């Protein structure tokens, strides 16, 4: 930075922004930060920027700060205009508060890093053995799990024979043959139940009834019988159609 031929007393790259520079200038007043003269501070800053401008491309934020401080200075010097808010005194106070805070944190940081630090001033054990926790599974199972598992395997793998039990049904063919034989012997209307076998009970009776009904419908379709029913769920009557009688 200092390799430029012009005389350069201040190095802008050394400052971390305008606030940093202002704090350094405030410290130059050699008074408590609380008693610094904002006016003197502004003058110093503007002079610095003037000096630096000749040789360096000044960062925008330095120029913005310079403009703001020039405004602040003029406001502080001129008779106060109560219309202007915030007042120049307030602006000066805020700048003051900011510098105090930055200064406080800078000192706090310096005190922090000068403490007894691990690895610089105090040391942890050089070669700790280390603690290791080995996780070990504690397997759990109950006797019931064991025997029921065996039951499942046995049930799954032993040969299985399927025997389909004889079920009491009357096939449609049987019903067709029976109804067409019996209806020929009947002269008049007969309820469909009279065509069922006398010994038909339970499931077989239901099956026989269903098959006989289907048989009756089939015979009616073939024009061999006629059907009659007064109302839904009323008894269903069936009668043979005698050739030539219709």
């Amino acid at each position, binding site marked *: 930075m200092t390799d430029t031929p012009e005389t350069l007393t201040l190095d802008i790259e050394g400052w971390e922004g305008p606030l940093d520079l202002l704090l350094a200038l405030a410290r130059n007043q050699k008074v408590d930060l609380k008693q610094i003269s904002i006016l003197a501070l502004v003058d110093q800053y503007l002079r610095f920027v003037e000096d630096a401008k000749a040789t360096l491309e000044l960062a925008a934020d330095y120029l913005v700060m310079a403009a703001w401080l020039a405004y602040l200075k003029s406001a502080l010097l001129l008779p106060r205009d109560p219309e202007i808010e915030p007042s120049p005194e307030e602006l000066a106070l805020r700048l003051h508060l900011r510098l105090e805070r930055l200064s406080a944190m800078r000192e706090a940081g310096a005190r922090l890093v000068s403490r007894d630090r691990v690895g610089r001033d105090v040391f942890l054990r050089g070669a700790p053995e280390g603690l*290791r926790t080995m996780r070990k599974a504690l397997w759990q199972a109950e006797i019931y799990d064991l025997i029921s598992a065996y039951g499942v395997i046995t049930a799954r793998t032993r040969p299985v024979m399927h025997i389909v039990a004889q079920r009491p049904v009357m096939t449609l063919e049987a019903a067709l043959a029976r109804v067409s034989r019996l209806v020929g012997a009947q002269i008049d209307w007969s309820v469909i139940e009279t065509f069922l076998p006398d010994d038909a009970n339970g499931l077989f009776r239901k099956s026989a009834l269903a098959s006989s009904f289907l048989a009756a419908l089939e015979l009616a379709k073939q024009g061999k019988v006629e059907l009659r029913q007064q109302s839904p769920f009323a008894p269903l009557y069936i009668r043979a159609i005698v050739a030539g009688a219709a």
Partner: protein
Amino acid sequence: MTPPDATVRAVEAVLFAATEPMTADAIRTHLGGVEVKPALARLQADYAGRGIELVRRGDRWHFQTASDMAHLLRRTHEEPRKLSRAGIETLAIIAYHEPATRAEIEAIRGVQISKGTLDVLMEAGWIRPAGRREVPGRPLLYATTAEFLAHFGLASRRDLPGLEDLKAAGLLDPIDLAFETMEVANAYDED
């Protein structure tokens, strides 16, 4: 104990922070030439009976955790875990048919078993290798252990319920078969 003097404290700190055991000479050089032997003797006495001890190995000194505390450095933490379906089935087959080879277990189970399943059962201490079957390939045989009997509260393998008992208990009912098969398929996937 009496407060340690500056040399004792320095030797103590240097040995504590050292990454390797140090000779008395190395410590002395480090401390600018003071005599350290009395300090080492003093430290050894100070730490006798504590959780840390100062030991000498050859001509080098170092601190280490007391040897009777070594078990604290590696600690096993036991976590209860439930045996997988594949695990429990494999165990059941071995228990009912032992000794059994892996191929026999698979034939009975009707599903392959992964290496991990047998490992888990061995880790649990419930099965053990029990010689080899004298057939081509000499496959390893597995049998249950005394721990197995203890864990499941059995006096002997003869205490395991027989097939008739299982049937009476409804454990062979084929009704559940479809459902169980589904579960087995899932368990197999997990292997």
